[in-house]
């Protein structure tokens, strides 16, 4: 579904991504693991066109999308959930969802606010609350729900567990599993291995802008030296 190969990206003159290669299959949840500053968020942004890749190719559902603008990429069915959440703080919950709304591709059951409130019940209780007056966990749910309103085929989920209380993380994991059950493909980025291993099928490890390791979750759990080298703090 999504193939990233040899992608490099720069901020000014700083080389952030160096030939990143990874892929996500249909209905699969792949986690991109790495420490702070390893290049996880930049990989997401490069796929989304927010940081245009300087080299390499990004193919989504068979079509090359590198070099396209973010809104074109989004319209192809790629959803982006940013790490900083970026809720429209002056818009209400329902208005935030409205901004994300896009027609669903044929054959897909479209997301509606009602369906999303089923997935995230706490949002349903605060439909008219401005986004700026929500807790971190609620904002995280809203930003995922907002992206789902665009009826994507695959979502880029950037560190959804960051800064959340354990009980909320638990609920987030449930939501991700529910989305996977719907057939949605997910590229997740995480530092939290516990969270990642519960929801993911495969893992890819990034460090200093390079992919260092790829494999299944059981393989990762077995490879102590890999975890030691790239993930332990």
């Amino acid at each position: 579904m999504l193939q990233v190969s040899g992608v490099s990206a720069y901020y000014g003159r700083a080389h952030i991504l160096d030939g990143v290669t990874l892929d996500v299959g249909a209905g699969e949840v792949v986690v991109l693991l790495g420490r702070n500053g390893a290049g996880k968020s930049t990989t997401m942004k490069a796929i989304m066109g927010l940081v245009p890749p300087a080299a390499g190719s990004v193919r989504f559902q068979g079509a090359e999308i590198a070099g396209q603008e973010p809104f074109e990429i989004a319209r192809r069915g790629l959803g982006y959930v940013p790490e900083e959440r970026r809720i429209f703080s002056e818009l209400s919950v329902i208005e935030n969802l409205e901004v994300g709304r896009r027609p669903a591709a044929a054959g897909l059951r479209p997301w509606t606010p009602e369906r999303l409130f089923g997935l995230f019940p706490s949002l349903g209780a605060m439909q008219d609350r401005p986004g700026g007056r929500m807790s971190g966990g609620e904002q995280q749910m809203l930003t995922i729900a907002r992206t789902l309103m665009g009826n994507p085929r695959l979502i880029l989920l950037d560190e959804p567990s960051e800064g959340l209380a354990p009980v909320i993380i638990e609920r987030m994991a449930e939501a991700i599993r529910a989305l996977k059950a719907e057939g949605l493909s997910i590229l997740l980025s995480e530092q939290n291995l516990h969270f990642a291993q519960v929801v993911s099928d495969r893992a890819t490890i990034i460090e200093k802008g390079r992919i260092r390791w790829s494999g299944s979750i059981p393989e990762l759990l077995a490879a102590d030296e890999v975890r030691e080298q790239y993930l332990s703090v």
Partner: protein
Amino acid sequence: MENLVLQALSGLASASSLFLVASGLTVIFGVSRVVNFAHGSLYMLGAYLAWTLVTTLPRGHLGFWGGVIGAALLVGLIGLLVEVLLLRRIYRAPELFQLLATFGVVLIVQDLALMTWGAQDLLGPRAPGLRGSVEIVGLRFPLYELFLIGVGPVVLALLWLLFHRTRWGTLVRAATQDREMVGALGVNQRMLFTSVFFLGSLLAGLGGALQLPRESVNLHMDLSIITEAFVVVVVGGLGSLSGAALAALLIGELHAFGILIVPKITLVLVFLVMALVLVVRPHGLLGKPEAAARGGQGSAEPVIGPAPPALRWLALAALAVAVVLPPFLGDYAVSVLTELAIFVLFAASLHLIMGPGGMASFGHAAYFGLGAYGAALAAQWLGAPMLAGLALAPLMAGIFGLVFGYFCVRLSGVYAAMLTLAFAQIAWSVAFQWVEVTGGDNGILGVWPDAWAAPKLVYYYLALALCLGATLFLRRVVHAPFGYALRAQRDSTLRAEAIGIDAFRIRWLGFALAAAAAGIAGGLFAYGKGSVFPTYMGIPRSVDALLMVLLGGVQTLSGPIIGALAFTGLQEQLVRLTDLWRLILGCIIVLLVLFFPQGLAGAARARWEARHGDA
């Protein structure tokens, strides 16, 4: 008492008109972050187009109202065209560069309007059905004014519905907060921006068209309304519609009653209020702190290094020409060269604020003018000799730089720029209205150099020495520890403060230093011309300084020098060669912004680095 009621009502009518224009400006700013100087030109075009349509169409309701609405729509389309052809390409450019581009549009529109409608004031017909007047508290009040009073609230209500009850409006409000995120959610920002420009321009056009029965249509409408609209938008809070409405009300009534209560300071009053509001509420009445503008990676400022050898040789060669050539030139050419030297210093002083300081100044002419007035007043009232006058010039400008700067450097971005503008306008108004001391519009004449410096050539060398010395001093300052601190606080105020730099103090001193340097330029200019006028402090002169710095490029030290030479030389030549110098200058500005977004020196530097590696 009855008079007061009428006065209040006519204040409401002005407020209504002002709101139409300001609402368009604030909506455009909210989404695109472009401070659209050309908004006043769109207003003027609305008035002119309405005049043409209304006088051409058959008389009657349909002809008049059709003409007004047609003009508004046409102006909307013109705004759309400006966005598609120009602004869309420079959304990622620095704020002031966009401002420069829109100022280019102002110049172009001025000459196009002059060519199309001529220099004479045009009088439009009165509105059919609203020609008469009504009796209010025993006095007659024009019906059309009453109609205008109604227009403002109706437009406000319609805009509110548009922004809160439609998908388009929701998208616009979202984009006002985080346009990149809106794009990542699949919204075509370009279409959104273009449509916002259409709406904002339409409102400006409508505002202008509705003035037709009220006042004559003329070529000065653009700049007079844009300053007022800026004031309203800034006082209300950038991007806030209800703020704009509130501020329009405030300013409209202030005008109406200011004339009654303090007729001597009407011009100052508006800007005093703006300054006061910004000092107390740095983001306007209903504005919110500017979110760290998202979207568009803010590119890091390049490091300023010492000039490469080639540039040094070039500078030395230019200096040699400047010293050796003048004796062989005529008086006129020598006085042009004197002005060039003066403007190089003026531009370099503004550059200190904008480049290394990272602040925006929209009213730098104030300090130029204060220097000029300092020298002239000393000559006029104290009979001071020239050198004393020249010494007083930077003192006067520097002291006011300290006072005004104390407030300005606390703000950031557009608000800071607007507060500098407010102070400049206050200084200008005082020079204009305090006739007993400053001579008002007639200025102060007979400010001539002492006998020894009277020959044009001697005065030129004096000006060259002082301006060159001051410019080199400013350059030295940038490379001194103070300059490092100045640049450090620009790049990151928090980090600078964390290592013990008092960012406020550094900015403040930088501002005052730049003001004093501009004062030297102003003092020299006064003695060079033999007279001073309020226009020395006017908005056009501040814009000239901005143009010089931005043309040359903010990011290099040689930028302002090259910019000053290019701009002054260009304007001088254009004014001599053609009546349409505004049109040509405007086109040149627009093309430069499009093709040399780093300015002339910036472009030269980029080329140099591409060929020779980092300088």
